[in-house]
């Protein structure tokens, strides 16, 4: 049986959803070691930049 692809829910999504996911996860990874109190605003900014 082929292995279940855990990223299928994202792969099956529309391009803007994929784009938001990639950018937000990268933001979280970049800030994993450094506490950043502005991540809520950063996420909103990402969404606004993608959906104009």
């Amino acid at each position, binding site marked *: 049986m082929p*292995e*279940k692809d*855990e*990223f*299928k*829910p*994202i792969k*099956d*999504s*529309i391009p*803007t*959803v994929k784009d*938001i*996911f990639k950018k*937000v*996860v990268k*933001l*979280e*990874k970049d800030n*994993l*070691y*450094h*506490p950043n109190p502005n*991540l*809520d605003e*950063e*996420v*909103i900014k990402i*969404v*606004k930049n*993608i*959906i*104009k």
Partner: protein
Amino acid sequence: MRFIDLKLYNFRQFYGETPKIRLSHGDKNITVFHGMNGAGKTALLNAFTWILYGVFSKGFQKENELISKRAIAEADVGETVECYGELNFENAGTNYRIKKVVDAVVADVSSRTKERLKETTLQAQKPDGQWNTVRNIDSVIGKILPTDLHSYFFFDGERVEKIVAPSAEEKARLANAVKILLGVEPLERAIKHLNSGRKHFEKEMGRLGSDETKEAIAEKIKVDKKHESLDAKINARVKKVDNQRDIVSKLNERIAKHASVEPLTKARDDHKDRIERSRKAVNELTDRLKSVISDRAFLLHTDELKSKVSTFLSELKIKGDLPSGIKAQFVEKLIRKGTCICGRSLDPKESVEAKEAHKTVSRWLEIKGLQQIEDRALNLSANINTWGSRNKDTLEVINDINGQIKEFHNEIARSSEELEAISKKLEGSPLEEISSLESKRKSEDDLLREYIEELGSSRNMLELLAEKQVEISSKIIKLTTKDEKQKLAKERYENVDQVIKATKEVLKLMNEKWRHSLEEKIRGNFSQISVKDYTPRLNKDYSINLYDKASDREVAAGQGESLVLSFSFISSIIEEIRKLTSAHGGIYGTGNSEFPLIMDSPFGALDDINRSRVAAKISMLADQVITFVSKTQWREEVENAMQPKTNYSYVLTYHSPREDTITQDIKLGTKTYDLIKPSINDFEHTEIKEVING
């Protein structure tokens, strides 16, 4: 994470500065420290955990007295004496140096003021060779090698952690640590921040939208708040249940220690086991029942439909809209032959009657899709005729499952009654201790049940609230608007909502896939080392239970099995992380694909067979293995298995202040090294010597 070298100064027995202790990696990845009891093997293991995490293993005593006694004694009154540990390591291509220093002021000749942590520094080397100071030391180290998993990477074989039956607190820490290693933290954080983003766009829609939108959003905010507060309550209740479970389990253990009630406690374990298995069977059967009902139960309500369809098909046949089961090929054959089955001629040239008959029969073939319609009608008729028997089968299956469920419920009721009777007997025990312990256990067990019920009803409520959230969200999304700004806010809201849903689904799938794969690996690794026919099962909270393969019953793991399980667990985690990192380096975790394993007395609790098997597999357990062994543990089979994979090895020469010291040595390769020798002064200390051509 790969350790490069370690240096200690005035740390416990290690008076003065040790040489730089280089640590093996690569093909020959084992480092061995040979030492007698008391020479400092456990101190060395704890030097690693102290430098990295500031913690010590359970067997490490007087953890507030790290500075060498000899260093204190040799210092003047009022003088400050230091002790430090420095560790160089590499992780994901970056070199790190961590140093921890404690100091104390000498109060008089033989005592010191309380030791204090002077500093911990972590530096990372930039590509140009410069060293930069790193802040958030705990966070950085915790992400590389989670603090909560440290007892698996650095462990004392003589006091191996009970991973088979961890406490509630240990379970939570274990699950959290595994989550960090799995690298799902960025996804969890993403959900948290996306939720805030969704709320922001929700508010924006509310501000800009119609009255209907405003109303829906106000309702959504209300439900969200309820969900959030209930979720927090559930988390607290889970902890409460786990703690209560620990209390009951400890009371059970205390009662079981009394040999006089052994038959009763054993019977109690048996009945509990039966109840557990019956409950599991009931859950599985209920799932099966649900699946049968959803797949086939519609058949039980199709009697009326069946007769309607049969009548309809018959009417079609009577009207001539459907040939009565006459196949197209058969009609073609009749035309070719030129004679109908009734004997009339079908040759159009023969007569007017024959021409008419030929026309009628040929018309059957002209109907578009005749073949398919005919086939479907025949199939439908045939299917409808089997509904009756399938109805009977479905009813039989449902009745059979319900019967089995009933039987298991009876079994649960019988065992519960037995448990009640056992409890009464224990409460009536002439031994006051047993009687009072049982009364306490009973009331704590009642409390546990109460907590579990509370938790269950809260979870049901949470599910209802989650359904309500989804319902309002789709209502909001469906609301139409002409205002451009509101449209934009809605589109953003909708996208964020979808990202959250998809990310949650990814997390769920990752967890399921990883846990399943990890369990398979643990089983494989365990069976390669252990001779016993047991199989480990990994629970949802990442704790492990051991089962006897033949009887499928849970067994208590002895110290030897616990040790083998520990090895299997940690080496399986390491293998899985490596697999994940190479498959999904971009999304998963820490970028850490190398792991060390530091083991004090790994062979202590093992019997001869397990010892040989562990020794043979030890270099494969992790990328880097550092192990501390006594002379008696360094047996021929262990040496033969480990020596070819050992790069650096060291001898801890213990200088004993005792007058009756008996010297001891060890022959490694062609040379003999001192293990114990008399101290030239009144203080103990240990020297570390590298074994040459060992």
